[in-house]
């Protein structure tokens, strides 16, 4: 068998995104737009995937600045106050000798968000320009990006625990800073950006031959 790989789209069918039932276009035209098994709305590719992902990425890129420039928390202890930005928190952990925790927070809060925005921008552009280069690697990049995105929430949970736990007025108090809102917004918006991107688009124009291995 040579030529294009056999996909649901090329055989005139749609795969239900929730339950995986393969429904033919004939059935959809004559019966309904909804999956006969799980009742979900059927569509071959996510609607306006590239536009939506791009819009969300632009919003996340803008919010990335306040997320990193404004403080995410302030600790007051015995009258002495320390204010942390995202990066400041990492540096403080490193200075305290907590290298492994500092590394985890750095990866989750600094590296992952910027990596995610860059990777999704790259994937959007690669699909837009119908690149056929390293299709499988780009598919892996998408899967990885989608998987790691949620882990950036570590810092938000850490702040929520600190402000709930440390409230001894003048002795020790932790308060949240405005950077935390922008940071949470970046994480959530990039999660939506990954969800609206349709990875099948990577393969649609890849021109990959089906060698029937």
């Amino acid at each position: 068998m040579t030529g294009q790989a056999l996909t649901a789209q090329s055989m005139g069918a749609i795969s239900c995104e929730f339950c995986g039932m393969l429904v033919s276009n004939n059935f959809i035209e004559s019966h309904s737009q909804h999956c006969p098994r799980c009742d979900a709305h059927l569509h071959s590719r996510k609607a306006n995937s590239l536009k939506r992902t791009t819009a969300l990425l632009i919003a996340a890129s803008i919010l990335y600045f306040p997320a990193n420039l404004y403080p995410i928390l302030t600790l007051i202890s015995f009258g002495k106050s320390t204010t942390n930005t995202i990066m400041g928190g990492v540096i403080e952990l490193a200075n305290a000798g907590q290298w492994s925790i500092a590394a985890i927070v750095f990866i989750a809060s600094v590296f992952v968000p910027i990596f995610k925005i860059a990777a999704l921008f790259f994937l959007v552009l690669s699909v837009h320009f119908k690149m056929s280069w390293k299709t499988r690697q780009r598919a892996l990049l998408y899967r990885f990006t989608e998987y790691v995105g949620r882990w950036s929430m570590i810092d938000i949970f850490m702040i929520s625990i600190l402000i709930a736990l440390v409230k001894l007025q003048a002795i020790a108090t932790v308060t949240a800073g405005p950077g935390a809102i922008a940071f949470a917004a970046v994480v959530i918006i990039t999660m939506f950006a990954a969800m609206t991107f349709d990875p099948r688009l990577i393969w649609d124009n890849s021109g990959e031959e089906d060698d029937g291995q």
Partner: protein
Amino acid sequence: MCFTREGVAIETDFSYTDALLACPECDLIHEVAELEDGEQGRCIRCGAILFMKHRNSLDRALAFAMTGLLFFILANMYPLLTFELDGRSQSNRLIDGAIAFMDAGYWELGLVVFVSSVVAPLMVLVILITLLLPMRLNRFPINAQGQMRLLSYLRPWAMSEIFILGIIVAFVKLSDFADVGLGPSLVAFVCMVFATVMAYITLDDEAIWNRLKELKK
């Protein structure tokens, strides 16, 4: 591991079928293969996991979900961490983080933390039970299709496993200048996360759909 491949002649004259499966990540058509217990089927083109097979999948997932719900209740009853400084002590429960954000005027953050650490993890466990328990008792679950879809919508927003890392970082940050102790609910919370992960790992969507088809008859 098992790789499946479309045959040379594939039946394309169907109205709908579950004998063929399109890869959710690249759309490539595969024939659904018979798998042994514990085997995974992956897409031969992009490597995405297509299906998993588990013996007694539904019973095991139900048992894990019920265990998880029990631990979830325990995780909400007692403190997660205790904090002692200068002779005064404080503790926090799971829900307190969301409340503290709201009290401080950060209601958006309060909402995000409430949904991702309390509501979504709880709903995942409850839906697993309201889906699987009736099926165990040979009844058709109420709005099974809607529950299945809700489950997949909720999944990325239930972030208990990430919350554990948040606890660890908070613990390390505080132990620098105060005595921080582990509360009884922390153990329950970790057990809840473990049970939820196990319920997901053992759950076999295909087995659910097949069982629902049987029950409909």
